[in-house]
């Protein structure tokens, strides 16, 4: 390698390393802001903004979904298996919304400790399978219990 090329290689390596470090510092500093949602555990610690919209994410607790008879209002619990947060929402839920499914709710915490959601998003996991495979998996789980 000629000296010029070596110099260029060192130059570009230093730039890349510098930018990488700067990005890492930036992302660590703004970690909180990049976080898409807060978990029920963080909320139980009081770690959430007051009177401002934020997102809360977790699983819909089994048997916690209650629908109102005369309106679109629903209430359900979001859990991370350590803590639960009660959520109320009025509107149409996404297709994938069901108990045991991951969801993200956007809204505000009310004084009564109920999270009033303006929008509910369903979170899909990385597992894709045909219905028969899902049924077999479910059956195996039942048998274990």
């Amino acid at each position, binding site marked *: 390698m000629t000296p010029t090329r070596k110099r260029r290689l060192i130059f570009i390596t230093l*730039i890349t390393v510098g930018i990488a470090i700067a990005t890492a510092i930036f992302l660590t500093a703004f970690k909180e802001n990049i976080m*898409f949602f807060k978990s029920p555990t963080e909320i139980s610690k009081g770690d959430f903004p007051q009177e401002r919209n934020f997102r809360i994410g977790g699983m819909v607790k089994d048997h916690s979904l209650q629908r109102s008879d005369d309106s679109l209002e629903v209430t359900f619990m979001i859990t991370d298996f350590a803590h639960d947060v009660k959520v109320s929402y009025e509107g149409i839920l996404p297709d994938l*919304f069901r108990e045991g499914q991951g969801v993200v709710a956007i809204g505000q915490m009310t004084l009564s400790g109920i999270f009033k959601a303006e929008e509910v998003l369903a979170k*899909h996991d*990385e*597992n*894709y*399978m045909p219905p028969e495979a899902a049924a077999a998996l479910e059956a195996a789980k039942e048998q274990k219990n």
Partner: protein
Amino acid sequence: MNKLIRLYHQIGSPPSFYQISGYFLKPLLSLAIVLFVYGLIDGLFFAPEDYQQKDAYRIMFVHVPSAWMSMFIYALMGLAALITFVWRIKVAEAVMMASAPIGAAFTVITLITGMLWGKPMWGTYWDWDARMTSELILLFLYIGVMAMYSAFDDDPRKAARLTALVVIIGLVNLPVIHYSVYWWSSIHQGSSVKIIGTSGIKDWDMLRPLLVMALATKFYYGYSMLHRARSYLLKTEYKKQWVHLILGLHETKEKTNE
């Protein structure tokens, strides 16, 4: 070993790159078309439906390979940029600039198919999730690279060197895109197909079309990139004798020889 060194020099020289790459165009395009047709038919009609999403998941046969390509092409562009910057090889400049629009196109496809899937599944077209935001930044990088180059197009070699610097700096975004779903809480799911560890898609009939489409997009990129790189070389080397020979401009060739 001598053969390898010779091959290396041949690929690095524009006339022989032009000649050698010419043999690859047709096979690459044919492979891409055959695999695209097979992969799409297999994925859209024969793969079993998903237990939760039913038929809506089939958009992944376009979305996931495009997303892989959007990053794969940028990584290759980064390699070409490094060679451009340090060794100033013209062929590397051509590969770098030929890749940018293809990568941008795949990024656009990724974003649009993702939005179309997001509306029914998540309940929203778009949210400022880390994965989506970093993929959008990737699109801006591609556009920035092309804009940067055309801003200096009166001197293509200088333009390529400056652009290479931007490309290399932008490489930082690649690990951010890949790990965004693990580093931060995000609405986008993790990778369904993993090289190491268990994949989220275990059913072979579901996985097969995805892998076929991944190959098809790679071949298409190979074809499209080589084609564009060849045009790039003809355009930037138009004063050289080998270009005149190829274009059949024999009269001008004799003049330049004098």
